[in-house]
């Protein structure tokens, strides 16, 4: 057990809960239809559209969270513009933050 500000934390109850959940899932699975055969139940109905071949139906990485990226379009436009990959810009960032740090260190001493 590990002490934390609100009490303590130990992994054992979580492991027990995980094992119990897995056992329950397996028990439920065993109660499924024994006669089920893969691929004979017919194709899924997708709004009347013809199903794509299996390997083309996989959602690719650049499409995952599409809505999230659309919502934050302006943030990502700004963030990707900042990542120029030009080393001169790295030095500008370095000097800017060094200056800010120096100002903060000296200015707060005066207050």
């Amino acid at each position, binding site marked *: *057990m*590990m*002490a*934390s*500000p*609100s009490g*303590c*934390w*130990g*992994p*054992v109850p*979580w*492991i027990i809960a*995980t094992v119990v959940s897995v056992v329950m899932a397996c028990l439920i699975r065993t109660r499924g239809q024994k006669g089920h055969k893969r691929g004979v139940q017919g194709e899924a109905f997708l709004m009347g559209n013809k199903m794509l071949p*299996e*390997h083309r*139906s*996989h*959602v*690719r*990485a*650049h499409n*995952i*969270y599409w809505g*999230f*990226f659309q919502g*934050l379009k302006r*943030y*990502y436009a700004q*963030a*990707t513009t*900042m*990542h*120029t*990959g030009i*080393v001169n*810009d*790295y*030095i500008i*960032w*370095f000097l800017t*933050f*060094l200056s800010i*740090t*120096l100002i*903060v*260190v*000296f200015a*707060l*001493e005066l207050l």
Partner: protein
Amino acid sequence: MDVLLAHSPVLIIAIPLLGAFLTPLISRVSDKGRDVLVIATLVFVEFLVIILAVDIYLGGLHIYALGASSPLLARPEHHMAPVRIVLEVDAMSILMGFISATVSLAAAIYSVSFMRRDTGKDKFYTLLLLLTAGMMGLEFTGDMFNLFIFLEILSLSGAALASFRTGFVDALEGGFKYMFISAVASLMILFAVGIFYGQYNLLNIAALAQAIQYTTLDKIALALLIMAFIMKLAGVPLHMWAPDTYSVAPAGTTPMIYVASQACMYALFRVCFTLYGVTLNTLTIGWIVIGIGLLSMFVGVTMAVYQSDIKRLMAYHAVSQSGYMLLGVGVGLAVLSDSQALSTYGRQAMGGGIFHIINNAMYKGLLFLTAEALFYALGTRDLNKMGGIGGNMRYTCVFFMIGALAISGIPPFNGFASKLLIYESVYQFNPMLSVVAMMVSIMTLASFVKVFQSAFTGPISPHVRAVKEVPKPMLGGMGILAAIIVFFSLFPGLIMDQIVEPAVEALINQGTYMNGIMGGMS
């Protein structure tokens, strides 16, 4: 054994250094002999680190003075200040040493198979051992000038490793950027060392800590050191080199270069807590560290979830995770002068941050290795071209899941334990900081779900049907880190009490570090 223990601080640095120079010679005779030499060297270093760690946890810090009649004679007779090269290893240094030794060993084992198709392996292993020596030296050194020297060794070998695969167009660019930012950071550190030497005629950290006045020049030196180390550890906004460098470094060297960045984070903490200590305005500097931590967490994770290149995604996560460590330890620094706040939540925030350093080195290292395993098997880093390989690469898939669940802070993995400590203790300092930290954790999970879904699940692509599991030594390298993650997950209390708490104490208690060298001098 006692002799070995007494000389272990210097042996931990000298053995990989010697191994590095022997590697090209042995390589001329036998490739297998060279591989055995490299792994044997790192196993021995790991062994020395473990025995030294046990001794430090039981008996306190170790001093090693080079060139003295006795390793404990840090100050020559009739001298007021230490002038020799001194290594000072306390609980915080040895924790970092353990991380560096373990990740280096896993990386070397992994590289045996990964580098089989490459040429110039004698140079590769020489650089790998030099990087290990540089990290160890940086973590164990007791003086500022040698800190600069070891940082140079670490930077040169890291840059050469990053640009090792010259067949890839972006490798040279990644190596050049690492070299460039390292040169700038080193220059700033050397400038700060010059400021200290000019004022106090001292280079030893303990002696400087005793003499430091927090003058105007000391404040300038502090700002230079903070920004130089932030640049080396890839804290936002000085992180932009990291994705370019981490994504091109070969095989196991990506986790090593990442651990080298964590060694620079250690140097930052050593400067803030041990060198300056309570002489500085801890609240101001603490908030600077917290601010950079918050920026790193947020920008790192939002950029990570956006990536389709698996190694760039991992690299941005490395930036994001560094933010957690800066946040936890930054809160401890902010309340360092307030003994009540320090005991109520400051120590636990620091404990969470330091626990996260060791956790993150293991699961981030594992995730970098799984990303390289995918690249090895598929020949691409593009997640859009992957899919359904979980069945073909079962062990890699399991290792990835362990790493991904741990980094996302899913209980009962070790990442949850360290994040829980950070959330709860930082909440008492400022609730908004905890809210941001939790949100970043959710986004971390989201981006690893993306990787899992893109690479391992779904229908198998026709062009990856022939993909096979990676060779056993690569699985062995990943297995070492996965086993440590599982162990840390099962026994978080043991790790906190025996390893992390002494490290927190070593950082907070500046007097112990100073007395180790200066004794009763005032």
